[in-house]
């Protein structure tokens, strides 16, 4: 709880200082269109990330080091957490071939393209499936995205990619009634 509060305060301070004193654009990620589908055995959660990868990411992806976007999914029934999972979308780049590869956890999708724009378009949407427990009725689905700390081997340097999102973790929540399959 304190960690979440701390990260919110940090994001607020960074946003305010950016607004007042910096010409740094960075990215202002926003999670929209959060939705869910309910099948017999799986609950699928989907959404779109807006303004998340437009600036600086093409350069970062081109480094060749695999870059992940992590989505933390949390399902609550009342005050109780009934399911918690993390999914990664990882972009890798091969400088020799100029091909980008996007691997999406959750559905196991794999995209390949020589266009970073294509990859970013695919990266901007997510769709995860998690096993649906029969006891789940009215739940609250919350999803939060973050960027990891990445180690660049050649430079032997560790960097926190959250700086590209100005330390702001985009999140969204939705209430779902799972008593009847859609």
């Amino acid at each position, binding site marked *: 709880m304190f960690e979440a509060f701390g990260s919110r305060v940090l994001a607020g*301070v960074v946003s305010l200082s950016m607004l007042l*004193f*910096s010409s*740094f654009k960075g990215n202002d990620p926003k999670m929209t269109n959060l939705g869910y589908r309910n099948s017999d055995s799986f609950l699928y959660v989907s959404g779109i990330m807006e303004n998340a990868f437009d600036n600086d990411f093409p350069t*970062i992806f081109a480094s060749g080091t695999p870059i992940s976007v992590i989505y933390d999914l949390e399902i609550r029934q009342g005050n109780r957490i009934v399911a918690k999972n993390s999914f990664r979308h990882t972009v890798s780049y091969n400088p020799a071939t100029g091909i980008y590869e996007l691997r999406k956890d959750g559905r196991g999708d794999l995209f390949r393209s020589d266009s970073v724009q294509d990859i970013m378009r695919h990266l901007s949407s997510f769709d995860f499936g998690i096993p649906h427990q029969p006891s789940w009725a009215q739940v609250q689905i919350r999803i939060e995205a973050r960027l990891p700390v990445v180690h660049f081997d050649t*430079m032997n340097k560790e960097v926190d990619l959250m700086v590209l999102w100005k330390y702001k973790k985009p999140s969204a929540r939705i209430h779902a009634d799972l008593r009847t399959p859609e």
Partner: protein
Amino acid sequence: MRTQIIALFLIVSIGGLVILNNVFQAKQENIHSALKGMELSSQLRDIRHYSSEDSLQAEALMRDFNEAKAVVNIALSDSRVMTSVVLLLVIVLSTTVFIIVICRLSKPLRELKHATDQIRQGNFSVHLPETGLPEMRELKSSFNMMSRELEAIQTRLLVAEKEMIWKDLSRILAHEIKNPLTPIQLAIQRLEERLETNPEAIKEILPESVSIITQEIENLRLLAQDFSNYAKVNQPNTEEFNPALSIREIVKSYCQDYQIELDLAEDLKIRFDKTHFYQVLTNILQNAIDASESGKPIMIRLYGEKSYAVLCIKDQGIGIERKDLQRIFEPYFSKKSKGTGLGLALVKKLCDANGSIVRVKSEIDKGTEFTVIIEGV
């Protein structure tokens, strides 16, 4: 002055930091733009590699270059974010420190102002804690010294005033009690003498002596009543009544012995303690009777003016000297041979208690006029 210097310093330092930040941000933006334009991968890919070793070397070169570019890019972004955050924190911190300093500077002044107000209201026991800046400590120390001196003077004055009041009271009481005692003593001596010399003839002087003693005892009783009345003026129990009716009732008993003319507005109503009203009127009237010569009537007039009822009692007596006019409402002040000096003081006290005003004007050998202004209903 100190505050202004601190504010100026703060503005200059923060302004300098903001300018410095802008310069840094502009330089970093330039580096960022230049970095974006640096591209190696596509050119290297286009070069024909004759062996797999060449390809591997080219690939390693591209990877190193791109990785370095990514790291520099992130480091630049990080530094731009951090400088802005640090600048914001510096500004917040400096402003907080500034506010604290200002509060610490102004707090003793506020304390001093509060203490001065206390002194103004007569509370000399107020003392300030001698803390803070050296100049402030010195100022507070001087203030404390002053308040202590004032407190000591006040205590001495109170003691002296009490002593004076008791002395005055004792003097007046002694004088007033002694006056009737002398005739009583003389009457008793005469009776004793007659009893020793000619007991049979005592009846000749007995009625006169008894009359003197009774009269003087009555005087003593009145004296005690005057003191008692003055001492026990309490909260008025106001009620609404017609003052004209009350005046007629009060004056009725006086009219048999004295010439009193009435001119009363009948339709007025006032809110006043009825007992207090009786005391006010009888005291002023008694004063007027004492000052008047026989054959000269006393005028009592009651009329309404705006929302007030005005009661005037005018005699055509000897009048009061200008210098005495200012003192006639003071307790124990009297120019009469027989009097405690409490009658008019009581009038003033009762009028004050009922929210009314009493005024007096007088001309020597022409008479005196007392005016009581009472709020009407």
